[in-house]
């Protein structure tokens, strides 16, 4: 095999480990997306009461002892499950992989709220006596916790940290992992995003106060981006981590390759704490295209970020229209309509749901669109039923977040 220096700069996905509200591995998750199966269900959390959420059902004890699970966090547990599954899926000879050369880069929307709320609730029963505040609080709430728990569980001694990037974190983790491989900081990266956010009442209460929390009699119909009757976000938990390698290494060991990260970009709005900015979102997508040396027409699928808030969806549609409005062959979909908003995991989960299209040529739909909002009526929007288009070469995945953080990644079929 001829190796070129350029192959050392190319970063490919060789393993995927995920847990979503509608699947705990890529096969089940993809099947649910093609079948139109939602993972949103009824949910109850302290103070807020009855609401809706996407809840994961993976077996926490597959890779953790009960003691380690008790000591750690839900985000850590999700991260461990996804990392172990990604490594197993990659087929790498893990026992003979140098743990010093493995890096762990995990995107999070937030971390620490769950444990802090739990402790405050606990000491309330003791008249707020801080002497019963847990000594586990700090190791559970340090911002690197989910990534650190993965290294503890798997004996990884290379770099680890989380990337705080609001709801763009899944993409940001993937980008970080790729960049660290290109910089030579590691030879193998575990990267993506996780979220435990459904276990903090604050996120539900915050969205409710903002008028942005979804409500619907039928939980499976609650997350409805682009529909006129959309009324907000369904908060979900989840995780999706990728095994990343340089193409040269992956090719040398004959690894299965899901795709190559050929373009990525991150931008800031600098305009508002909450409201998105379509100009900067469009610039982000255009930057990713330019860096990949592509035109809009080259992208077969745009995986949108849209969360089903009334204004956010319109803003993203405006941005997508500016970049892809002239491309007749680009299809557009949305995965939150199935799984809700998995926060820090959203970017990586939504990308993963689309990657099988490289091989089956099918674009999964945006479900729950009964009455398409004219302002969201993008050409190429795949509504309610999957569409077979064949020949998918490039997928662009958007992920945006509060404080005006935007990300886009482009994956090429290999």
């Amino acid at each position, binding site marked *: 095999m001829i190796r070129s220096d350029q192959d050392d700069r190319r970063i490919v996905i060789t393993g995927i480990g995920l847990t979503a509200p509608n699947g705990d591995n890529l096969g089940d998750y993809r099947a649910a997306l093609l079948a139109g199966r939602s993972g949103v269900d009824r949910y109850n959390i302290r103070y807020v009461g009855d609401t809706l959420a996407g809840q994961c059902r993976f077996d926490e004890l597959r890779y953790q002892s009960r003691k380690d699970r008790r000591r750690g966090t839900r985000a850590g547990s999700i991260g461990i499950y996804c990392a172990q599954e990604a490594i197993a899926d990659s087929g790498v000879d893990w026992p003979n992989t140098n743990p010093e050369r493995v890096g762990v880069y995990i995107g999070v929307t937030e971390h620490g709220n769950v444990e802090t709320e739990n402790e405050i609730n606990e000491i309330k029963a*003791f008249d707020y006596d801080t002497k*019963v505040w847990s*000594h586990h609080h700090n190791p559970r709430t340090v911002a690197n916790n989910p990534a650190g728990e993965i290294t503890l569980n798997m004996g990884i001694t290379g770099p680890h940290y989380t990337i705080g990037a609001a709801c763009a974190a899944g993409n940001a983790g993937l980008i970080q992992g790729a960049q660290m491989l290109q910089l030579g900081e590691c030879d193998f990266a575990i990267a993506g995003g996780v979220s435990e956010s459904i276990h903090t009442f604050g996120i539900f209460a915050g969205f409710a106060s903002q008028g942005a929390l979804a409500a619907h009699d039928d939980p499976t119909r609650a997350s409805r981006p682009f529909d006129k009757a959309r009324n907000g976000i369904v908060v979900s938990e989840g995780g999706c981590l990728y095994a990343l390698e340089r193409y040269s290494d992956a090719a040398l060991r004959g690894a299965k390759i899901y795709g190559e990260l050929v373009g990525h970009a991150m931008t800031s709005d600098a305009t508002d704490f909450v409201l998105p900015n379509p100009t900067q979102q469009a610039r982000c997508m255009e930057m990713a295209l330019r860096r990949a040396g592509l035109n809009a027409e080259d992208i077969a699928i745009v995986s949108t970020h849209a969360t089903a808030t009334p204004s956010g969806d319109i803003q993203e549609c405006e941005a997508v229209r500016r970049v892809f409005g002239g491309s007749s062959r680009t299809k557009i979909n949305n995965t939150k309509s199935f799984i809700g908003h998995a926060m820090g995991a959203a970017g990586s989960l939504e990308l993963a749901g689309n990657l099988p299209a490289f091989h089956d040529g099918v674009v999964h739909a945006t479900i729950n669109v009964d009455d398409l909002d004219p302002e969201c009526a993008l050409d190429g929007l795949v509504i309610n039923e999957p569409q077979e288009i064949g020949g998918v070469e490039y997928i662009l995945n958007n992920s945006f977040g509060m404080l005006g953080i935007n990300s886009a990644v482009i994956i090429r079929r290999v």
Partner: protein
Amino acid sequence: MTKDEIRAEVLDILADIAPDEDLSSLDDSKSFREQMELDSMDFLDIVMELRKRHRVQIPEDDYVNLASMDSTVEYLHPMMKDM
């Protein structure tokens, strides 16, 4: 509480802290660490649980008394006998 009741309480706490361990064959005279995987954070859990459940305050200098079941029960009994 009697010594047997205190032992049962400590055993219950241990079952929470070390859920993967089989405690049925615990030797009360041997140190906990010889028989199961316990680290300093686990011992702090024992102290914390006694504080939460029974308002028992154990000074840091006295943590050495929590080495085995026998020494733990002997140490706790004067504090808990009237509970």
